[in-house]
């Protein structure tokens, strides 16, 4: 018997598009009773196709790719939440999944009840869950609220408990999707330590999806890169990450990306259409060395007349989500008419951030900030702005910013 924890062969998942009417559903339901046969006429989308890889027990594997690359589909297939359309996989050991915040928690139940429910979902005997109980509660720092229904938890507490449950209930294979970003920085660090411990000392296997490349770097020795449903890379972390970064398009069309989320949060009167990031020579890049210059260009289109417009950008740490700096400018103090388009350019000369990955949070709003017109952040597929350094002195790259300073020595 080999020590493979996961072996996936030719995995693929097809979704049928435009299945809107009940008649379509009825037709599909009837057909799904019959042996799998090729579809004729329907629009279909392969969210994932022909993905094969294997994972040795105790490995921590990072999975990266742009939005819609198939990362979540892959995790859902491996955790058996959905069935593949083709291919197969074999997993050795119990599989714990943490695909979203509070996975499998019931809001009406208390933290205590939810811990036992999660254990039962993993197929663990109650006594075994009881043994781990105190450890979980202590790690999640929810002692005082353990008998409160989780619907009253803050989102931070919720994530901490969910993570603690998933990582302490000791599944042999742990599947984690982009969940750590919700917690605070301290918790994220503790979580990564916990995961490290789980793979290193306890020999657990972890599949880890994250946009946080730093977390992937510290934690994984191998990455899978997915691009439009295909596995394009399987190997060392740095090579995978640079391939992934290269695959990011230079001029990013955000007009139709995740409009639903944006409209939930804003009035939608103005829409960002494109984002470009240029270096000092006018070449597109999302990387800049310390002291370098970048220009970020945002195109917008006015969809409904607005009385005035302001622009707000926050540069945030991609690791912690914490704003590093913010800039706000009035774009127009007078009304803008429907159909007007324009370009906003922000030039940041002499970047003095230390090597880091920076995510953007950008809004258009009414000048008094009462109404937001559009917002883009993680909801669209913007790459991180990478600040790099060739300095070899570790004290020249440590921390977040470089400050101008004078230093003198005297006798």
């Amino acid at each position, binding site marked *: 018997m080999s020590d493979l924890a996961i072996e996936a062969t030719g995995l693929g998942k097809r979704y049928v598009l435009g299945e809107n009417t009940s008649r379509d559903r009825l037709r599909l339901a009837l057909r799904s009773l019959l042996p799998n046969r090729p579809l004729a006429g329907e629009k279909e989308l392969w969210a994932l196709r022909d993905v094969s890889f294997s994972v040795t027990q105790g490995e921590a594997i990072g999975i990266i790719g742009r939005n819609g690359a198939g990362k979540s589909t892959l995790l859902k297939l491996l955790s058996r939440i959905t069935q593949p359309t083709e291919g197969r996989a074999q997993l050795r050991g119990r599989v714990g999944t943490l*695909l979203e915040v509070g996975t499998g928690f019931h809001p009406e139940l208390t933290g205590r009840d939810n811990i036992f429910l999660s254990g039962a979902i993993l197929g663990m005997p109650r006594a075994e869950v009881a043994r781990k109980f105190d450890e979980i509660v202590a790690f999640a720092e929810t002692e005082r609220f353990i008998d409160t229904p989780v619907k009253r938890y803050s989102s931070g507490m919720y994530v901490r408990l969910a993570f603690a449950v998933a990582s302490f209930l000791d599944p042999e294979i742990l599947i984690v999707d982009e969940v750590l970003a919700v917690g605070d920085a301290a918790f994220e660090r503790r979580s990564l330590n916990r995961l490290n411990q789980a793979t290193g000392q306890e020999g657990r296997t972890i599949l880890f999806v994250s946009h946080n490349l730093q977390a992937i770097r510290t934690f994984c020795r191998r990455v899978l890169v997915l691009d439009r449903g295909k596995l394009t890379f399987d190997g060392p972390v740095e090579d995978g990450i640079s391939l992934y970064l290269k695959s990011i398009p230079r001029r990013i069309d955000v007009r139709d990306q995740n409009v639903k989320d944006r409209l939930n949060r804003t009035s939608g009167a103005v829409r960002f259409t494109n984002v470009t990031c240029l270096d000092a020579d006018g070449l597109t890049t999302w990387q800049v060395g310390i002291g370098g210059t970048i220009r970020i260009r945002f195109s917008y289109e006015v969809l409904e007349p607005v009385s005035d417009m302001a622009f707000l950008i926050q540069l945030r740490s991609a690791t912690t989500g914490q704003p590093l700096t913010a800039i706000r400018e009035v774009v127009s103090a007078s009304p803008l008419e429907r159909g007007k388009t324009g370009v906003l350019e922000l030039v940041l000369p002499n970047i003095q951030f230390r090597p880091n990955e920076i995510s953007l949070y950008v809004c258009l709003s009414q000048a008094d900030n009462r109404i937001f017109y559009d917002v883009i952040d993680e909801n669209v597929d913007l790459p991180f702005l990478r600040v790099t350094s060739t300095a070899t002195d570790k004290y020249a790259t440590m921390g977040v910013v470089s400050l101008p300073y004078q230093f003198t020595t005297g006798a």
Partner: protein
Amino acid sequence: MSNAELPVTAISSKPRLMPDFADAWRHRALATTLAWRNIKIRYRQTILGSLWIVLQPLLLTGVLTVVLGMFLSVPSGGLPYAVFAFSGTTIWSAFQRALSDAAISLASSGNIVQKVYFPRMLIPAAAVIATVMDLLPVYALLIVVVAAFGLFPGWVILASPFFVLLALLMAFAIGLWMTVLDAVFRDIRLVTPSILQLLLYLSPVMYSETVVPDRWRALYGLNPLVGVITGFRWSVVAGAQPPDLIGIAWACVFVVLAAISGLMLFARLESFAIDRV
């Protein structure tokens, strides 16, 4: 931990003929945990809690006794009408609740089934198990009432769990069909109350099946609940008409057929349904 003891999960695009029973067995603790969850959630923020469960068949019995027993003098096979009706509504309401909860169970668990995996068959199973908890206080009250009327049946009462089990298995088997279809087409939950109502009128809950004319008897007996309800009544009330063995045999055959076909349909459509909950 050695590799060899670890459970192996095979994921394949091939549809299964039957659900994975070994996996379901590994997760058996989950069925009761889910059932407890259902119960806790149901009575959260209620004042009387599970008392409502006892009240429901009691109220139905009261209305039936007044309207059918007193006003219309519906035949009750020689038993006091109130006892007749209460024994019928006890088993009927267990069946009805089990079936209607099972029917909507998969679609109502959308938030959990799309985020974690466990054998989905346990969801309708938990809905049915939860009704056992509801049934217990009603059952206890029924025994008290029967004894108060001096109609305690003696040893034969030990047969009553069998009929309860038969009713719940029947609800589970039909529930398998309904819940997987309901996840895709919500029409199912809209027609369930009507079907149950028709079934109530077609079952000897509020009237003795002696009112059914002989030439209709065979057709009437096709309702598998007839054997279950008369059997249950016979096992809990002294002097109730003994059940027809053919009726009980038919109920058992029906349960087996419905369960096998329900499990096959469930295995086949489960993944399709989960993607569309």
